[in-house]
């Protein structure tokens, strides 16, 4: 006898035959946030498994202390359902590359056209020193935060948390590199531009040591959620936006520089997305039906710690506002705006800004 399977229907296309579940064309192992799963949910949810969803055999390799690949105690925060979080920016690989690529194209085009028109040579001399020293120092801030998030994306209990952290890291590291290459490029057009001054300023300038301490404290934290909160809830409004929007973006043009605001502007849009992701996750935790009080208390402790560091950082940067030739904005105004901003953010989470 020879084995000859029966002939099939002659097509492998949907609808070629009707049988049980021949129309089951949606992933049916998770509950979408809305009525219908988004594309982001389909490519993200449950790719990182756990014993609740759906590791029948539990983790099958462990660390020497017996812990599996991902455990809930990688953060001190508690949740009755870690799986509920969905990133509001709905980022997956395609949207991520589209956005990052668009930003790179925009940044490069602005720099290239600016250089073609001879713009860097027309920058005010005092402003050139600011770019060289202080924007040069700032690139290390973005790098430090980016590498912290790169570390953090290993620890979250779900794919949704870790992917949101990963894209946040990618945005930060892109900005760090954008600033680096931008300064190197305009440096070629400006005689005497010292490309190494930024790092020296970062490591040695007294005014920057508060910022360095704040960033290193985030880098040194072993709680991934503390890192995520410290960056997006505290550091960004009190130091990040303060320096980027409250100084660079507003002061550059009146000192003859129309390039820097465009290079930096992408970061502000990145932050809006990263803030939305962070807030959604933290909001779930401070309204958790079992652990809200614990989480609020924990987060307030983190806020107190990192606000103190961020305040010190911001105060250290204050003298920079008086260095440009043209001073269209005062530090006090920018600072007041960033304090308002963080109050609003903390208010959404039921947390308070500690007194200075």
């Amino acid at each position, binding site marked *: 006898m*020879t084995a*000859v*399977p029966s002939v099939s229907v002659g097509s*492998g296309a949907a609808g070629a035959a009707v049988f049980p579940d021949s129309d*089951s064309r949606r992933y049916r192992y998770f509950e979408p946030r809305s009525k219908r799963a988004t594309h982001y949910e389909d490519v993200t949810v449950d790719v990182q498994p756990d014993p609740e969803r759906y590791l029948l055999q539990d983790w099958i390799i*462990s660390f020497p202390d017996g812990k599996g690949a991902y455990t809930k105690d990688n953060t001190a925060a508690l949740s009755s359902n870690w799986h509920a979080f969905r990133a509001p920016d709905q980022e997956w690989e395609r949207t991520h*590359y589209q956005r990052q690529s668009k930003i790179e194209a925009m940044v490069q085009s602005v720099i290239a056209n600016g250089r073609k028109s001879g713009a860097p040579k027309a920058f005010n001399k005092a402003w050139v020193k600011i770019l060289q020293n202080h924007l040069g120092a700032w690139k290390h801030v973005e790098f430090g935060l980016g590498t912290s998030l790169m570390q953090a994306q290993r620890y979250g209990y779900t794919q949704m948390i870790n992917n949101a952290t990963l894209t946040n890291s990618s945005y930060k590291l892109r900005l760090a590199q954008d600033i680096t*290459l931008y300064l*190197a490029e305009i440096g070629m057009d400006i005689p005497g531009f010292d490309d190494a001054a930024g790092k020296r300023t970062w490591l040695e300038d007294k005014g920057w040591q508060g910022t360095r301490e704040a960033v*290193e404290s985030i880098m040194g934290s072993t709680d991934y959620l503390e890192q995520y909160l410290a960056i997006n809830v505290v550091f960004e409004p009190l130091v990040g936006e303060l320096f980027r929007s409250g100084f660079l973006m507003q002061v550059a043009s009146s000192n003859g520089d129309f390039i820097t605001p465009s290079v930096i502007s992408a970061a502000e849009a990145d932050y809006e997305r990263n803030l939305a992701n962070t807030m959604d996750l933290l909001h779930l935790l401070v309204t958790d039906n079992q652990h809200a009080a614990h989480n609020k208390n924990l987060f307030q402790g983190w806020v107190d710690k990192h606000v103190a560091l961020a305040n010190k950082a911001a105060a250290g940067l204050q003298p920079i506002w008086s260095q440009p030739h043209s001073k269209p904005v005062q530090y006090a105004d920018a600072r007041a705006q960033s304090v308002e901003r963080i109050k609003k953010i903390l208010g959404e989470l039921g947390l308070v800004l500690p007194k200075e």
Partner: protein
Amino acid sequence: MSGTLTLNKITAQRGIPVGEAAKKIADLGWNPSYVQEAMTFPTDYKITKAPKDPMKQVLRSYFPMQEEKDNRVYGALDAALRGDMFRNVEPRWVEWMKLFLAIIPFPEISAARSMAMVGRLAPGEDLRTGFTMQMVDEFRHSTIQMNLKKWYMENYIDPAGFDITEEAFGKCYATTIGRQFGEGFITGDAITSANIYLTVVAETAFTNTLFVAMPSEAARNGDYALPTVFLSVQSDESRHIGNGHSLLMSMLKEPENHVLIERDLRYAFWQNHAIVDAAIGTFIEYGTTNRDKNKESYVEMWHRWIFEDYYRTYMLPLEKYGIKIHHDDVQTAWKRLTEKHYVHRVAQFFAVGWPVNFWRIEAQTDKDFEWFEHKYPGWYAQFGDFWKWYEKLSHRGQTNILFNSDVGYVYPHRCWSCLVPCLIREDIVTGEIDGQLYTFAHELDRWTAVQAFADEYEGRPTPAMGRFSGRREWESCYHDWDLADAIKDLGFVRTDGKTLVPQPHLRFDEKEMWTLDDLRGHTLKSPLMTLRGMSPEDREAHLAEYRKGFTINPCN
């Protein structure tokens, strides 16, 4: 003169050379002085020399390049639909994609996570840029593969199995092998897992069979989507291979690392062979309908990619740095694939267990037999009757092949190390860990679990090394369960509550489709629990019998 004038030449302005740009970016890092970065993923390796980034790529050029690659992938998927690809696709092939694509997104995203583990270990920042890009690459791979799976689910004739994919991944008796692979990237000693196991062995050696050989077979089966996605994925791998090699070169500088490198290369090569060859070998050889005798078989490709390319040009040169290379392991793997029919035994095992899978497995036919015999002389004598039985028992009303005593198949023990069963029967060994008895497919598997994954290696403390844990023997999860109840618990039932997701055929007719009732009345047993319950004498007798193998009865 005007003949050589181009727009580029008119508009060009002085830029920064690539090497200079990479150098400036590598200088973004610094040694913290206020608070130290925590080494949360420890290693027993010592790394003092800063590794170099061989690729020297920066994100400014990386993102547009990747977007362009994506545009080609998604454009090709649209074109495949417009060209009515699924009308001509071979269902035998797409069914195996339910298994493959259930597994692969997890190892991919695990690779992204593992970049955090190596990112802080090496001094200097040069390679951190390379790790950053690999992290984003792996995020790409994981979600682009999930997208491909969704696309199959939406357009292929039988979406069942795709629709439960990530749940099935966590439960199935076959996907457990893929979990061993993925967890191996992120658990235990950070260098063992994220460097040697992932980049130095899996990515450098075995992605060639995964992401190059398999797409070729997909195309032969009318599937143009998988090659489009996976060749794009593979184009990222050279970056990862560079990362792995660079870090390896740094580690080689420290003589005290050599014994660990030797251990980890041995473990990683053997386990990649056991896992990747089991899965990809089966997909390529048994998932295809193309029986062109001029095409390379899986073992022929293995010889080219793994033996010639990897072993000869990557592993062997490590000897000059003082690393002992276990040539015999490579030869043993080769013999397992050729003389001992490793892939064919795995395919046989997957087929026997069809009721607890979540895809359809079709019987092999005369045309297949001829090709197998041509490529693997002696195949028909060992496997011909089995596949005839499989076809015969694929019809409802027959006792399923897993429990049909007429066939002569003996259900195998599971290997505690690679999680592929002990299919080459004569090679089974047992060993003890913390006083408990375990079974292993080969002496090297025993060595892996007992000696390599321990807190001491050759007299040297290895406190960072991982441990094998959990309910590793899948069968023990359903010991003494009725088969139908186990399938229900696994969730491998269609939404009508009775028809099974898996089927032992490609007949898309409801009347032909097996239900829970067709399988009720058979009790599953854990071979390991059964073995442990035996007296020492009975156990020895059982293992001696097991080593003799089994004979499939003639199917008339």
